[in-house]
């Protein structure tokens, strides 16, 4: 009994401990820059979680990160490190907008479903390229997915300024608008668009898939030891393709939501670095889809607090970058503590 308790307590203590340590470190940093750390934390809390508006501000920023984090977390089960979320978002958004424009008379529900599918397929195919190159050509997936980000952004910019440009989008080259009727609304009673729900649902589905199905079990085996998986007759190549595709689909969905819930068009704002932020979320959540949800909310909160920090303490925007850096360094460092902790306790008990 105490042992299982220890097991549950360990990650909790480590996370709380590392958050405390990083807050102390960041406090020292802020203090040395001449601001009062206690006031800064108070402001950050108010801006991120203090009021219901703050919560909405935080959650709206967290929503895309949940989806882009899956771009890195899912392939992580196979031992792959994919950092191509940005490309998946961009391709998803672009293709979602393009298909919506081909169906001007269809009812919104049909348009939105098609858009979601198109976005997911586009994002999925984009990350699948990285997975396929890895499996069939042994091209390192981290680097290829990074390069694919730049290529996707170039494609987006090229297409929205040429073939698919709405001539009316004068000073901000974009595709045509998908139509107000086709826009996704907000969750009743809030200011949040449905992206948050999609994000949470996607994380839960991903968690169920990876932890409670044969498919997930097979992936974990393949991730642990490719040779053992091959001996056991597991189709490693197919697993890689399917998982990369699912991961990219999550990113593509995030891109589709940017178009369908916010911009109504595809343009260069799709490249908003959600993909890169998602990588950190995935690493800090240790690739666990359920843990992604709170981590994304934490990061969303930090980002939401940037504005008020600037306005009330005249700190530069980079302050929150430093804070994110410190928190994530400490949390990644704390990875080494797992296991040591309970061993110490056991020794103490015996």
């Amino acid at each position, binding site marked *: 009994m105490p042992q299982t308790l220890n097991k549950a307590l360990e990650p909790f203590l480590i996370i709380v401990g590392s958050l405390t340590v990083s807050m102390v470190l960041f406090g020292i940093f802020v203090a040395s820059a001449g601001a009062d750390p206690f006031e800064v934390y108070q402001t950050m809390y108010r801006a991120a979680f203090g009021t219901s508006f703050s919560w909405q501000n935080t959650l709206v920023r967290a929503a895309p990160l949940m989806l882009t984090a899956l771009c890195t977390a899912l392939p992580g089960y196979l031992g792959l490190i994919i950092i191509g979320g940005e490309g998946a978002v961009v391709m998803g958004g672009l293709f979602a907008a393009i298909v919506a424009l081909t169906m001007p008379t269809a009812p919104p529900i049909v348009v939105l479903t098609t858009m979601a599918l198109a976005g997911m397929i586009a994002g999925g195919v984009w990350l699948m390229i990285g997975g396929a190159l890895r499996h069939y050509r042994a091209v390192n997936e981290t*680097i290829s997915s990074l390069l694919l980000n730049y290529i996707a952004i170039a494609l987006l910019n090229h297409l929205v300024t040429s073939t698919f440009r709405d001539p009316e989008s004068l000073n901000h080259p974009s595709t045509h608008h998908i139509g107000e009727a086709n826009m996704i609304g907000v969750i009743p009673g809030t200011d949040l668009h449905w992206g948050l729900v999609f994000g949470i649902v996607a994380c839960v589905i991903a968690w169920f898939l990876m932890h409670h199905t044969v498919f997930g079990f097979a992936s974990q085996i393949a991730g642990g030891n490719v040779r053992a998986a091959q001996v056991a007759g597991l189709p490693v190549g197919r697993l890689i393709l399917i998982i990369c595709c699912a991961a990219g689909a999550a990113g593509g969905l995030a891109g589709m939501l940017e178009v369908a819930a916010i911009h109504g068009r595809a343009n260069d704002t799709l490249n908003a670095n959600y993909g890169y932020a998602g990588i*950190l979320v995935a690493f800090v959540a240790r690739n666990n889809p359920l843990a992604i949800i709170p981590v994304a909310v934490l990061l969303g909160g930090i980002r939401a607090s940037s504005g008020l920090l600037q306005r009330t303490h005249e700190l530069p925007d980079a302050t929150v*970058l430093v804070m994110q850096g410190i928190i994530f360094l400490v949390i990644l460092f704390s990875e080494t503590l797992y296991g040591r902790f309970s061993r110490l306790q056991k020794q103490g008990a015996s």
Partner: protein
Amino acid sequence: MEVGWWGVLIAVLGGAIRIGTPFLFVSLGECLTEKSGRINLGLEGTLVMGAMTGYAVSLHSGSPWLGVLCAGLAGMVLGALHSWICSFQRVNDIAVGIAMMLFGTGLAFFLGKPYIQPSAPRLPSIDLGAWSDIPQLQAALQINALFLVGIVVAVVLGWMLKNTAWGLKVRVVGESADAARALGLPVDRIRILSTAQGGFLAGIGGSYLSLYYPFNWSEGLSSGQGLMAVALVIFARWQPIGCLWVSLLWGGAAALGPSLQSVGVTGGYYIFNAIPYIMTLAMMIITCSPKRTLVGVPRELTVTR
């Protein structure tokens, strides 16, 4: 003097050196780090931090070369921090790299605010094109001593890795940590040193950006040069001299887009500007194969497992 289409060639030549130099330093830094079996994805942060430090020190001291040195030292600190954190068990070096990228750029932006406005002293240039009477060629061959330093570092680093006891130690640690431990080598210390030295080089690469070309400190200064180091090293097959060729190639490819426009090839510039990325991906697809491991790859590297 009319140069017309020759201008494209001159721009690519000049661009190879001008744009290539920072790539050379970051890729040499990354190469050394990877030889010891670590990957540092945080060189983007190191580069930006180096750019800021170099500019600030040059401004305060009036000596751009002191700025370059301090940029290197700042990079060294960040590199050492990266590898110190990674030396603990089960800490993922790629993840730490991304966090370091955030931390380094954040710190540089935070501390660099007061340096966006003032103009710091610039690094001097050397005229290698005095023999020519074509002004465009003279300009293209106006280079900075750091480029020459980079060539020397590439050659020396290549030689040292191959022929010295130090180089052998680094390579053994990069090939197999277990074997290194069996030989009594201090694996962590060697890795920390290699990563710190790599950070030093990347910091210098950053100072080249802020103190020579494009000569500016701003928050938009780097457009992913540090991030690309990882790709360049694979391209260069973990050979320091290969880093030199690859960096020149990248610089030239990056100069192609604007120079084509200057002679009237106006279409598709987004695609032209993405050429370096497409080229690298194509190279990787062509040269990699599942049937054999790449020559020169350090086996301890997480990216190659």
